[in-house]
């Protein structure tokens, strides 16, 4: 059974994330009162980029970094339970997933660093500072859920929220859920916090030297990162879904919420983003953890 899971899960993840990419461009267009591209536009883009006659590289580290980035994302996808489908989760719990999520940014940072372009380096430094910003509340919220459930296994956490809506993480640890919801756009790299790949200021930041197949790897990694973060959010706070369909439905709702924010918000500076992430979300997450500790006693 788990062999099927190992093949199906990445395909499902790539399919869902590419579909989300198409939806995001369509919804953003409609919010801006224009028609926007067809839903399968990302497929067209990927075909065009793969079929290009020329690709430019900046050396071995540049190539290896991109392969590691997408490879890391695919590996992380295998460890996240999706509505009962969790092939490899016996080999890795939430801590392993948290640390596996380090691989893709590390790969991308290496590739962008090796791209010898100042815009890319500035993009990487912004991306890491933003990560430092949103990790603090995210970790506090994770620890709150883990101490509440008394386990570090994501499958157990998801199953514990299964029976009814009242058991959801959202209901049992509302402050932590709210804290993570506040920093979700930062984790997804959506508009208020997309200064790492800002086209206007730093010529699309880390992606400045990615063309052709490198851009495909980067785009797929970005899409998979969105899938991973939202899947984690659903598993932790929205009850993880009895079967795959309900899981995907919940992911769609969360993604749609993120999209609405993305379509209307201007981009903030990295200093402001760091201060914001360390102020309200961290406070909420801290309170959530204290509440869980006190209730746990």
């Amino acid at each position: 059974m788990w062999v099927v899971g190992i093949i199906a899960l990445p395909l499902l993840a790539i399919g869902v994330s590419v579909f989300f990419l198409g939806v995001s461009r369509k919804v953003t267009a409609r919010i801006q009162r224009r028609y926007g591209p067809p839903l399968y536009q990302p497929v067209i883009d990927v075909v065009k980029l793969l079929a290009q006659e020329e690709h430019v590289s900046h050396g071995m580290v540049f190539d290896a970094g991109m392969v590691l980035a997408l490879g890391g994302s695919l590996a992380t996808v295998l460890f996240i339970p999706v509505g009962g489908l969790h092939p490899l989760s016996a080999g890795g719990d939430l801590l392993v997933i948290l640390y596996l999520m380090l691989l893709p940014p590390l790969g991308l940072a290496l590739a962008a660093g090796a791209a010898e372009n100042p815009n890319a380096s500035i993009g990487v430094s912004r991306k890491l500072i933003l990560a430092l910003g949103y990790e603090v509340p995210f970790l506090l919220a994770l620890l709150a859920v883990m101490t509440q459930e008394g386990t570090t296994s994501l499958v157990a956490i998801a199953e514990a929220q299964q029976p009814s809506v009242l058991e959801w993480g959202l209901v049992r640890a509302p402050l932590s859920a709210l804290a993570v919801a506040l920093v979700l756009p930062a984790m997804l790299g959506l508009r208020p916090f997309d200064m790492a790949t800002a086209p206007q200021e730093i010529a699309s930041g880390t992606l400045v030297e990615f063309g052709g197949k490198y851009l495909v790897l980067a785009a797929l990694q970005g899409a998979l990162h969105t899938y991973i973060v939202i899947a984690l959010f659903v598993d932790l706070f929205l009850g993880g879904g009895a079967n795959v369909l309900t899981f995907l439905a919940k992911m769609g709702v969360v993604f749609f919420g993120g999209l609405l924010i993305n379509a209307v918000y201007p981009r903030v500076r990295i200093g402001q983003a760091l201060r914001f992430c360390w102020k309200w979300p961290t406070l909420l997450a801290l309170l959530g953890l204290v509440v869980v500790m006190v209730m746990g006693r």
Partner: protein
Amino acid sequence: MDRAQIPKILKSPANWGRKYSLWAVYFCTGCGIIEIPPVVTSRWDAERFGVIPMATPRQGNLFLITGYVSLKTLGAIIRTYDQMLNPKYVVGFGSCPVNGGMYWDSYNTIKHLDQYVPVDGWISGCMPRPEAIFIAVTHLWTLIDKGLADGYKRYKDNYDFYCANQRRVLPHLPKFACGTGTETATAPATLRMPT
């Protein structure tokens, strides 16, 4: 996407991809760039055709040269064109790239864009309207289908012709030989840093 297109797509998915995902390099050369914002935003919405303004030449395959091209801008255009990845298409926008337009006798603007950079399509008019861009895009689709949008092939085949023209007008242009990756850029003697 109607049913009729399916066989054409299956015949050559590459052309299908190149047609409906023309990423324009957001490069403001001359006065024409003021026409681009309405094209890409809500009023005209170029994204319906798959045209998105991209920040870097590495990601773009459509190069819209808008308005008159002064000598200094020509240097930047040539370097950006070299940094774009094949297949790449150049569209001259406005009458100035065609034959110099109202600056036909100026000492500082070039008169025929296609002497220096291969051009696949022209949009005449002293600042054509956004609809003209969409017409140009649709024409480009047909050219791509027929395989006639081969500006990048012409550039590679008679590369010396283009290089000679470029060197005649910009003798000290630091330039990386296109397609060979070797660095022919000589450190420009005159590019003095502000003291």
